[in-house]
């Protein structure tokens, strides 16, 4: 009898303490499509640390294995949110009005090694030492319109060589790119840090530069279906808040530097490992995370102008429809303080 009274009292206290949250509003079911990579870490962290729960969101993470599929899942209505890298395909989908970019994911930031230009041993020995000299070289990329393709495009613009003079070899996947370079079938490729270091370790490739040393750009974003942005604005706002908390934790754990500018991976990083181990494929160790953890804006702010540039570049290559306008698929209202916002 006493037990029962106590329980009732506890319940009563809860109702008093959490007005309007747990009871008046049952948690909303929300789905996000994502890749099982460290670049999705803020979502994983926010989920595991209960930041979404605190915002009244019951988040279901759907894992895909290609950036394309992540965007298609949102466009087709199978997911409410998505988080992945920009590609030509992404812009074409976004241009159809099915999704809105709302916050930043990875970007190239000075001092943070993320994606490397790798020369084959042979090309390196023949004098290929700088990303300025890509003209006339053969380069393995995943696909036409991929971020690797865009990296080359930016280099071509910056160092005044013709992109046409680079022989692009689309080979569909990163393992194929590594195989093509190791086998000496291409002069160069562009790889994420862990893959690039692996090639250097094997002695088949040589890193000749990092992307952030040459071109800075916004790699990816958090986006939502246009429908949910229009119809459930408060939900999107809550979602972004939880995401930002995840981002902040991520930045504090993996992006901090000491006075010499070296990255510090310490207690905070270790504390986040269980969340990453649960979601990231293949299962990461603290050492792999140390290499692969890429820069993300701690508040989710976008390099807006760069996204406009990306769209324009893709259009110039004939890969994105001329009718696509970046301003139509970016919604700047969920995050404050975006960078380089072009004036209308």
């Amino acid at each position, binding site marked *: 009898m006493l037990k029962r009274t106590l329980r009732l009292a506890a319940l009563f206290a809860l109702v008093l303490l959490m007005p309007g949250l747990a009871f008046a509003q049952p948690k909303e079911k929300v789905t996000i499509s994502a890749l099982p990579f460290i670049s999705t870490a803020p979502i994983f962290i926010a989920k595991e640390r209960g930041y979404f729960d605190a915002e009244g969101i019951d988040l279901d993470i759907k894992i895909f294995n290609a950036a394309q599929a992540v*965007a298609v899942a949102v*466009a087709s209505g199978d997911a409410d949110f998505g988080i992945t890298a920009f590609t*030509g395909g992404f812009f074409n989908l976004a241009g159809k009005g*099915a999704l809105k970019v709302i916050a930043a994911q990875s970007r190239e930031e000075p001092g943070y090694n993320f994606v490397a230009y790798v020369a084959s041993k042979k090309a390196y020995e023949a004098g290929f030492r700088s990303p300025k000299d890509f003209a006339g070289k053969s380069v393995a990329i995943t696909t036409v319109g991929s971020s690797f393709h865009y990296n080359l495009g930016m280099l071509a613009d910056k160092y005044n060589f013709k992109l046409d003079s680079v022989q692009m070899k*689309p*080979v569909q996947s990163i393992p*194929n790119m590594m195989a*093509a370079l190791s*086998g000496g079938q291409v002069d160069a490729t562009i790889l994420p840090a862990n893959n690039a270091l692996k090639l250097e370790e094997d002695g088949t490739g040589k890193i000749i530069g990092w992307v952030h040393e040459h071109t800075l750009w916004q790699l990816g974003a958090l986006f939502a279906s246009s429908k949910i942005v229009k119809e459930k604005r408060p939900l999107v706002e809550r979602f972004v808040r939880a995401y930002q908390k995840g981002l902040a934790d991520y930045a504090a754990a993996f992006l901090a530097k000491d006075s010499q500018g070296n990255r510090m991976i310490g207690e905070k990083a270790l504390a986040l490992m269980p969340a990453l181990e649960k979601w990231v494929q293949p299962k990461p160790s603290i050492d792999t995370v140390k290499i692969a953890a890429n820069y993300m804006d701690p508040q989710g702010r976008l390099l807006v102008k760069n996204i406009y540039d990306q769209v324009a570049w893709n259009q110039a290559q004939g*890969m994105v429809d001329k009718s696509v306008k970046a301003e139509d698929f970016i919604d700047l209202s969920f995050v404050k303080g975006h960078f380089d916002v072009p004036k209308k």
Partner: protein
Amino acid sequence: MPEVAKNTVAFRGGGFVPGTRRWAPWLAFLVIIACWETASQLRWLPALFMPAPSEVVQALHALLVDGKLVAHIVASLKRIVSGWILGSLAGITLGFMMGIFVLARSVGLPIVSALFPIPKIALLPLFILWFGIGEPSKVATIALGVFFPTVVSAFSAVDNVPRNLIRMAQSFGLSTRMIVFKVILPGAMPGILAGFRISSSIALILVVAAEMIGADTGIGAFVLAAGNLMQIDQLIGGVVLLSLLGLGVSALLSIAEKIVLRWR
């Protein structure tokens, strides 16, 4: 004379006659495309998932104007034709040996049966290691895909050459070599040509897989890139190109059959 009922016998043997209506397939195509276009114009089909036929035509036209269309077709045809010829020659040779020599049959049949069902696309990474990412790996993919069905069809075509013709040739003292070239080869032509229909379709199917690796021109590479870029109109345009190519090949084979199999 008593009245006798006299009835004209009614015809009751109609129908069940095999035949074709030349206009029927064209009409069916037209109706399907017209319905599709109408549904798109009325926005019953979401543009995101299914572009209108007119958009597909526009995409192809744009490609034709900037000259890439011809480049894609030429690049793919080169791979298809060389892969198909290689695979067919090797397949017919092995199929003939299996049809003629008991030992070749006993050894070849289980091996072919074991290797035939391997999806050639799964072997793509292996081909990159063996042949690189240039033309050889693409041609090899198609050649291997063509090889196995050709072995099977050549083998059964040889098997179907009437034994009495071979005995006749033996009774006139023809050597084995002469029997192969004068009796078995022409006698197996119907089966081999039927096999060509299948193997040429396989070559067309495999060109997409073959061009996954290191190709920037070719219909397969074009379709893949359109898929990656979510350019659905171009994607369908590429698929239409492939099926037109298929129709063209089928028409060529029909002509070849008419000439080679005039005697049937």
